[in-house]
């Protein structure tokens, strides 16, 4: 066996996976997106840009996704960072494992069931009733963008906590000592040592949460009451209710495209942030 053949053979499993799981499905979606809706639903092959011309009719879905996904990611980051910092730096190691497990525990239950719990909490007999006790009447939480945001932050928080925790956990504590020996105040140590060194974790966490959020469907459907519409919801409706696979494919292709652009810009930014450091690698 020549070295060349062997290399090809070694590449085959990954190559096949790539082809079957990514290239073929995406090509099908791309081909569908130039088709037309069959009379009883489905798709008939064609070559038309009509579906893409119709995209503005889904503008609201794109707008909701493109606002709530970044806001959700940022909010999750703001909550997750102190938590991860506490777990990695402050907490006594003998408690650390237990606390980490507690962060994972919610993942053992389906997000569907946990969202039902939120429906109750945000509904009229939950938090609004509690606020009523304190004299704050008539608060509506459920079926609002706020409810969806709460659901998003709650659902995705662990995905943000773990990468940040890992990068802070690996942090060389001697650097912090050195910093304070050289006379830096704690906040300066944090800004100049801890934060830059945890950028890989932040970048990974944000990426994980943001990409998944762009395709989110369940949380807006359940906590938004069908009124807070994401692209994911538009896709489900287009494929399952309108049965307009061609238009659905065009929306899906556009979503992938928007995602690619955003993520590329984001990677560039992160790389620039870490450009002057050779010990920082992204993902």
């Amino acid at each position: 066996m020549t070295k060349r053949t062997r290399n090809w053979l070694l590449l085959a499993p990954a190559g096949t996976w790539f082809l079957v799981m990514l290239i073929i499905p995406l090509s099908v979606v791309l081909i569908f997106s130039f088709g037309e809706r069959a009379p009883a639903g489905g798709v008939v092959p064609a070559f038309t840009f009509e579906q893409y011309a119709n995209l503005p009719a889904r503008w609201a879905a794109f707008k909701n996704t493109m606002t709530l996904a970044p806001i959700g990611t940022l909010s999750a980051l703001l909550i997750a960072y102190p938590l991860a910092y506490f777990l990695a730096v402050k907490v006594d190691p003998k408690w650390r494992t237990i606390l980490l497990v507690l962060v994972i525990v919610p993942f053992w239950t389906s997000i569907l069931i946990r969202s039902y719990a939120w429906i109750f909490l945000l509904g009229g007999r939950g938090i609004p009733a509690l606020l009523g006790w304190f004299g704050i009447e008539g608060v509506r939480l459920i079926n609002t963008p706020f409810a969806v945001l709460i659901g998003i932050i709650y659902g995705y928080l662990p995905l943000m906590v773990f990468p940040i925790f890992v990068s802070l956990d690996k942090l060389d504590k001697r650097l912090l000592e050195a910093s304070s020996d050289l006379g830096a105040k704690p906040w300066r140590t944090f800004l100049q040592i801890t934060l830059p060194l945890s950028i890989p974790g932040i970048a990974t966490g944000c990426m994980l949460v943001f990409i998944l959020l762009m395709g989110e469907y369940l949380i807006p459907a359940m906590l938004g009451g069908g009124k807070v519409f994401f692209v994911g919801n538009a896709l489900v409706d287009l494929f399952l209710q309108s049965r307009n696979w061609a238009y659905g494919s065009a929306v899906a292709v556009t979503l992938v495209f928007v995602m690619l652009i955003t993520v590329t810009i984001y990677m560039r930014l992160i790389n620039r942030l870490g450009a002057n450091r050779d010990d920082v690698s992204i993902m």
Partner: protein
Amino acid sequence: MTKDSDYISKRKFMEELGRYRKGSITRRHFLNVTGLGAATAVMGAAMPGLRPSPAFAEGNIGDRVIIATWPNYHDPSNFEAFTEATGAHVQVNVFGSNEEMLAKLQAGATGWDVYVPTNYTISTYVDEGLIEPLDTSKLSNYDASAFDARYAEAGSVDGTLYAVPKNWGSTGMAVNTAQNGGKPISSWKEFFDISRDKFSGRSMVHDYQLTTIGSALNYFGYSFNSVDEAELADAEKLLIDVKPHLFAITSDYQPSMRNGDAWLTICWSGDGKQLNTDMPEIHYVLGAEGGEIWSDYYAIPKGAPHTDAAYALINFLMDPTVNTKEVLAHGYPTADAKTFALLPDELKNDPILFPAQELLSPLEFGAAATLTDPNRAELMARFKSA
């Protein structure tokens, strides 16, 4: 009206039957007048053949059967009894709309053995080759003559039987009268007007084009089934205008009606019955302008992996005793005279299940064109993403 035990002459019976067929009297009236209700009840109890029996155990039907159906639509203990009798485990897949069911079948290989299509979808399933003709010799409990033709006819297309009737119902609205000074709502006009006014933030419409667009069309006095572009444009304008005032767009409206977050919703009669039983201040009403009357069926999709088990399950569920338990669980009226006879009197006389004829007559059966019309589908999607 005569008493159940009274004698009825042959001529009188035929007259009543004629009136009943024309739809000018209700099933309840017919069965009471002719005494058939009482007779079938006695027969049902006396004849062992009408009781559920482990008759299927003799043939091996496999270890499972998969049914695609709607939420809260069966008595789970019936499925357990079926498994006990046949050894086949019943796996239930729940769906929210006929559109979704059709889409799954169009995509192919669902693995379902039995599904529960609604009247207006069956001809589409036949056209698309997604439904199996039924072999009545395998359905000993199915007696075509026991079914009210109005709720059974959509099961046959061009003389071939594709589906047998499960139950029927109407689509109206449920209103919490305690929030409206004790007054119920009585028309779709009122429904959408109060939703934008006094009930702002408290109303719900279905996540379902047929009923939501249909009611909006009824608001203007148009047909529930309209596919006329100008009429649909009016409906869209109304829906988009109402949307900011809606509490939710959902077909799962019972929880928020029960906990008081919402006061008004488009509602299927069985849900209306369940809500009204538990909270008498919630009334179920039909829109004065009309609305939907519908009928659901049992059918077998083409390529069903466990056909024998599918026939066995449908046959089992059509047994009047089993079906009676189903009716008690889901609260929808049955089209089967044998099952009707076994129902308790308070259900037979329930105005939600069996509304007066003058309320039923403006209602329309959904049409196949309503299901497949691309404009209606797109309108609903635009309304939701607006």
